[in-house]
């Protein structure tokens, strides 16, 4: 090194105009203002009696699937006057708290920093490859622990923060007084379970657009235009499950006007509605639930008590043929139609369960073409079948009675398995409730 120590110091001093020192950039009033803002923010954060809920996103890049990095995480914080913060969150599924240091500093803007290591919170920014997350490149999940303190949203009651390095928007909501911290995560788990335990695609309506949201249980939606080929492509959008619903990653699909949007469950729990615009919402659609569940091997059976007159009439006619015989097919007074249902063996399969003696259960299978039409599905018998004993008893007439366009209704919101009602759009008396 040829420069002397003194020369280095001099060079640094001469060139310090390019360093972002506060004094070089702001006049005194600005410095005072920054100082006042810092105190005010500190005061506000410490004032929340039961602490704060942080809705945290690590990174803003959302172009490919990267579930761990894109989904949101919830942390609870209690900022204390002695410079410590209590952090609460589940670690490996078990609720844990840990205390470390925090501060509000001025660094061009007001910055909230978690400036001593907290194994719960810094896990999301820790570069250690030994965590086994991302190989040896030292990126880790890649999150921030220093946040620019932006505006306080009075309407929705949250403090908006922005990660200093990754630029993700993060929110702090005051925690309700009296809410037990550990129990709060139980609440989030219940919401998660309520929305996603059936693992079926959701429909999203954004103005004229109808989107399909897949992979909900991973907390990273894979998004397609409704009806698009889902074999490849799609967009990935991380989200966080909140007390009231979900919130999409803040840098999300802004052209679709759901930027920074929280979606809260509506009163009858059938929809997640954007807090910004009630015309933007997410719901589980019955037709999609029917199609997707059948495609994934679900076997639906109609609840016999739910069958309405047009169906029971068709069943009665078929049973009469069974009792009396048709042509060379002999009659059997004990034969009975037990139930009908749908499954997948080839296209959409109408399963007809029957018994010849009232004890054993047999099943015929008749194949239908199907077509999604908005929220409806059109079924058309294609003339093919698997087991088909009922054909000999004018069964084809019975099967063809199921041709038609159906509307679907999920009886328990987000839980079609507990009851999916299907009705012909042109015959309200052709209605049944499917169960699993």
């Amino acid at each position, binding site marked *: 090194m040829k420069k002397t120590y003194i020369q280095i110091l001099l060079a*640094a*001093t001469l060139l310090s105009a390019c*360093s972002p020192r506060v004094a070089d950039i702001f006049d005194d009033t600005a410095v005072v203002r920054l100082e006042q803002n810092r105190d005010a923010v500190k005061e506000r954060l410490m004032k929340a009696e039961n602490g704060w809920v942080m809705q945290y996103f690590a990174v803003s890049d959302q172009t490919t699937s990267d579930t761990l990095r894109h989904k949101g995480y919830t942390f609870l914080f209690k900022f204390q*006057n002695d410079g410590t913060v209590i952090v609460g969150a589940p670690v490996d599924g078990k609720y844990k708290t840990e205390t*470390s240091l925090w*501060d509000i500093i001025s660094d061009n803007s007001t910055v909230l920093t978690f400036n*001593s290591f907290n194994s719960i919170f810094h896990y999301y920014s820790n570069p250690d490859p030994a965590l086994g997350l991302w190989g040896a490149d030292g990126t880790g999940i890649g999150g921030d622990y220093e946040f620019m303190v932006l505006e306080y949203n009075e309407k929705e009651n949250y403090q908006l923060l922005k990660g200093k390095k990754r630029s993700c928007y993060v929110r702090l909501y005051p925690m309700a007084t009296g809410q037990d911290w550990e129990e709060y995560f139980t609440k989030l788990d219940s919401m998660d379970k309520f929305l996603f335990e059936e693992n079926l695609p959701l429909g999203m309506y954004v103005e004229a657009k109808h989107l399909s949201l897949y992979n909900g249980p991973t907390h990273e939606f894979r998004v397609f235009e409704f009806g698009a080929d889902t074999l490849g492509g799609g967009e990935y959008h991380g989200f966080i499950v909140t007390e009231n619903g979900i919130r999409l990653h803040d840098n999300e699909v802004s052209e679709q006007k759901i930027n920074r949007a929280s979606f809260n469950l509506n009163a009858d729990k059938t929809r997640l509605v954007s807090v910004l615009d009630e015309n933007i919402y997410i719901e589980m659609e019955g037709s999609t639930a029917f199609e997707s569940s059948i495609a994934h091997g679900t076997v639906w059976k109609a609840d016999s008590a739910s069958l309405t007159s047009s169906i029971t009439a068709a069943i009665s006619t078929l049973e009469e043929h069974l009792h009396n015989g048709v042509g060379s097919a002999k009659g059997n007074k004990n034969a009975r139609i037990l139930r009908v249902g749908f499954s997948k063996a080839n296209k959409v399969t109408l399963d007809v369960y029957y018994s010849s003696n009232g004890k054993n259960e047999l099943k015929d299978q008749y194949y239908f073409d199907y077509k999604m039409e908005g929220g409806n599905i059109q079924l058309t018998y294609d003339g093919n079948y698997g087991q088909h004993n009922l054909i000999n008893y004018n069964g084809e007439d019975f099967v063809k009675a199921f041709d038609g366009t159906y509307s679907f209704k999920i009886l328990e919101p987000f839980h079609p398995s507990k009851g999916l009602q299907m009705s012909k759009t042109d015959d309200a008396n052709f209605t049944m409730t499917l169960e699993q």
Partner: protein
Amino acid sequence: MKNIRYILILVLVAGIASSCKEKLDPQSIFPEVSESLDPASYSFQLDSFCKKNFQEIYNVEFRYQMQDISSNMNFNLVPCTYDDAITMAVMAKYLWWDVYTKVTGSHEFLQKYGPRIICLIGSAGHNATGSVTLGVAQGGLKVTLHALNYIDPSNVATLNEYYFKTMHHEFSHILHQTKTYPAEFRTISAGWYKPNGWEERSEQEARSLGFTGNYGSSQEREDFVEIIANYIVKTDDEWASMMSDAAKGWKQDDNGTLHQLEDDPDGVDGPAVIEQKLTIARTWLHDEWNIELDSLRKEVQTRQANMNIDSLRNQVLTIGTGE
């Protein structure tokens, strides 16, 4: 620590770019230190210790709280724990500041030439290649020590090597920048330095060529300070083992696996060269700085052998908080 393939001690020259980034203006390095500490603050004990032992005596800011996540955009870093910061603070005083002060007889020496800022970082500096940076020193003014969250005070020798060798190394740079080392040092290994590609040499191959390790084989000035730093922190056994490597011949095969050779074909008497460099350094420190290198080494080695981390930590933990 797991996964350390090799250890890089990065020493950045305080050139124009880094002076801008690093805010080295000596007038502005303590913008946030308040005059009086708050006894109600959780970190009062450590802050008091640092104020009394580093700031007030040496004008050193001991920065254990992460100040800027983007202070080094090359790395993703996390802070150290408060507890590890205590351990490092007491060890730094015991194994570094107190040593020079004792050997030179006053605080003045470090007040004048010592580093101004010590930064502690919890994580290692993970390079994209998979290597790990454990310390970064910028022109001797600011020394950043990484991987605090992995310190194991029961392994003092390793800690000395990881952390304090970097500081001896960097400090030696400051000294030779102030009073240049003898011209005869320049001739000893001339022709063997590899400013680019020193990493490809193994430690053993470098030693056989008369260096203390591969980084010392990068440039003459690095060679000089590595001789001093290694001599100070290496135990007798470690030094002897290094010399034994230096006496042998080594070669890497195409897979990078190192093999010891029957003879030593490089034609350099490794141990003799290292001894020769050490003698120059020893004489220079004595003549120019009135520092006895062997006293310095003995002080470090004795302290290292007798270190009781709990009693050192008690210097912090017994500070009254006024409660």
